[in-house]
């Protein structure tokens, strides 16, 4: 059930509706005819896909295929050369900057390196969006921040600075910050990158918990096959050669039925793996 626990304030101080993406409404994410380009160089074209409520949607593809760039387009960090990104009924690409900022408050983003603000403690990192966009008191913010950090296994680390903790812990703290406002849509950019297999597995479990318990819709950019099969229920495959999406669907279905050799080569590590990972969470 998609619920937002914390009422979010708009830039003029008024509270905005707590649920932007009701389940009986349109899909939370629709990407239409998106073209990504740097100047005249077209990186990807004709990208079309829909992410449904409660999906864990995987954006996969080889290195340099434009997965992270697509994520940056979806977040408005790069303007598309063509096409649009819709969040429910909201045309994000054509929106005014202030409207975009308000929409972004319904999202949580976990960046590859955590992207924690280095001058702030972990509690301050998690507490910043709470302080900016809710009416909570300082004591309440501290409590919520401690809870979010505890959820990612960082209880007791509230007053640590990012430089004082390991890379894996930074990533988890980044996740705590991303879920600070109980966002309805979560974006993960290479969540497993740089993590040991156990930490990677724990992060996958956490992503599933967030989907199941907070009702969040989740978009994950990754090329980690174990994660793809463990958490993904929908996906697209970006191909650098043809510069477009060459496959869509549940990764397990793609492995079983997709006849495209590029997809099969990718999903089987060049033909080495015949079966998806044994740790299949469904």
């Amino acid at each position, binding site marked *: 059930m998609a619920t937002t626990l914390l009422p979010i304030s708009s*830039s*003029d101080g008024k509270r905005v509706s707590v649920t932007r993406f009701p389940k009986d409404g349109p899909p939370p994410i629709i990407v239409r005819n998106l073209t990504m380009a740097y100047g005249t160089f077209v990186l990807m074209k004709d990208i079309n896909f829909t992410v449904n409520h409660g999906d864990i949607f995987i954006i996969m593809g080889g290195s340099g295929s434009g997965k992270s760039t697509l994520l*940056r387009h979806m*977040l*408005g*960090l790069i303007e598309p050369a063509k096409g649009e990104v819709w969040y429910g009924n909201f045309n994000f690409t054509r929106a005014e900057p202030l409207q*975009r*900022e*308000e*929409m*972004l*408050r319904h*999202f949580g*983003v976990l*960046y*590859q*390196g955590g*992207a*924690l*603000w*280095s*001058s702030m403690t972990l509690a301050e990192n998690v507490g*910043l*969006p709470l302080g*900016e*966009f809710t009416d909570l008191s300082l004591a309440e913010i501290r409590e919520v921040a401690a809870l979010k950090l505890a959820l990612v296994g960082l209880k007791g680390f509230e007053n640590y600075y990012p430089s004082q903790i390991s890379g894996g812990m930074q990533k988890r703290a980044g996740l705590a*910050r991303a879920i600070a406002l109980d966002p309805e849509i979560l*974006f993960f950019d290479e969540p497993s990158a740089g993590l040991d297999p156990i930490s990677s597995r724990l992060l996958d479990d956490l992503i599933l918990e967030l989907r199941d318990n907070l009702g969040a819709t989740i978009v994950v950019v990754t090329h980690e096959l174990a994660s793809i099969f463990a958490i993904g229920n929908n996906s697209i495959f970006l191909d650098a050669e043809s510069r477009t999406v060459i496959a869509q669907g549940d990764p397990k279905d793609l492995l079983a039925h997709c006849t495209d050799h590029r997809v099969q080569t990718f999903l089987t590590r060049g033909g080495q793996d015949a079966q998806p990972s044994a740790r299949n969470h469904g």
Partner: protein
Amino acid sequence: MQALKQSQPSGELSFARSDASTLVLRLAGDWHLRHGLPEPELVLKQLDTAPKPARLTFDAAGLGDWDSGLLTFLMGINEISHKRNLPVDWSPLPEGVRRLIQLAEAVPEKTGARHEASQVSFIEELGHATLLYAQGVGEFLRFLGEVTIAFARLAVGKARFRRIDLMIVIQDCSANAFGIVTLVTFLVGVILAFEGAVQLQQFGASIFVADLVGIAMMRDMGAMMAAIIMAGRTGAAFAAQLGSMKVTQEIDALTTMGISPLEFLVLPRVLALFLMIPLLCVYADCLGVAGGAFVSATMLHISLRTYLTETQHAVTLTMIFGGIFKAAVYGIIIAVAGCLRGFQCGNSSSAVGDAATAAVVTGIVYVIVACGIFAFIFNVLGI
């Protein structure tokens, strides 16, 4: 069989013909990278010798130890064979060598991936640099406009930033800068007074050293020296801080949280320098006068009371406030230049260094330009 033995810096390379159309490359001895590689021209020369060979092969019977030096040489041969459409028989080579060559060849070169260095004429380079400069000025003005809008939002209480950040930047660009400002501006006062004294002494007008130092410091030098110090110290720090934040995606994290980086990061920095540089300017003015008084007392034997009385007569309030106004403008220029360069930083650690350098250069250049414009305006207004 014809054999042309070549002396090589590493292993031994010699040539033979198994038949008229097949060139055999004989590899012998140890082929190590650290001993150098044979020139590909040796092979090209053989390929151009009549009768021209139609295929290549190897004789590796005498080959000893080898490392990537041998592979580099063989990849060169491979490229030559591709260009000349010559079939190569790799089978006589050791299996390890063949497998590594296969690995290097496994992924074909991506079309358009290679960056070819091109010769650019001076005129083209000059034109390109001019366009870049014009674009840079445009970007600076656009950023200044965005900062102005952010200030307008601050004025109506809508701008979002942490007050603690503002306090930290204020401390950094005021109290923490006292030492360097003290040293530099005192010495500037000393230098001005010394240079003036040498000339004025010849006319028996030593007392006017106080006028020279007082007017120079109040009108321009106080504000200018404070600005240059802050451009080198704080402007560069702003660029490095924001550049690092860009590299680590901290700025992206703010943006995707719906927090304007311009308000959150730039506003406190611009505000801090705008508020603090005028104070540093007043402090610099005083230190400059103190430097002048020191030289006058030790070299010209002018008492402190006389020196200060003369300074009081020479300096007007308009000069002092003019200097303070200029300093405030310089503060905005330096902060905007530092933050802009930080935001424009690339995604590598070296780009952070470049951003810091560019912030100092941009800050100082625009401060000097502004100083020139002020000189003209103040002259027209008779200030």
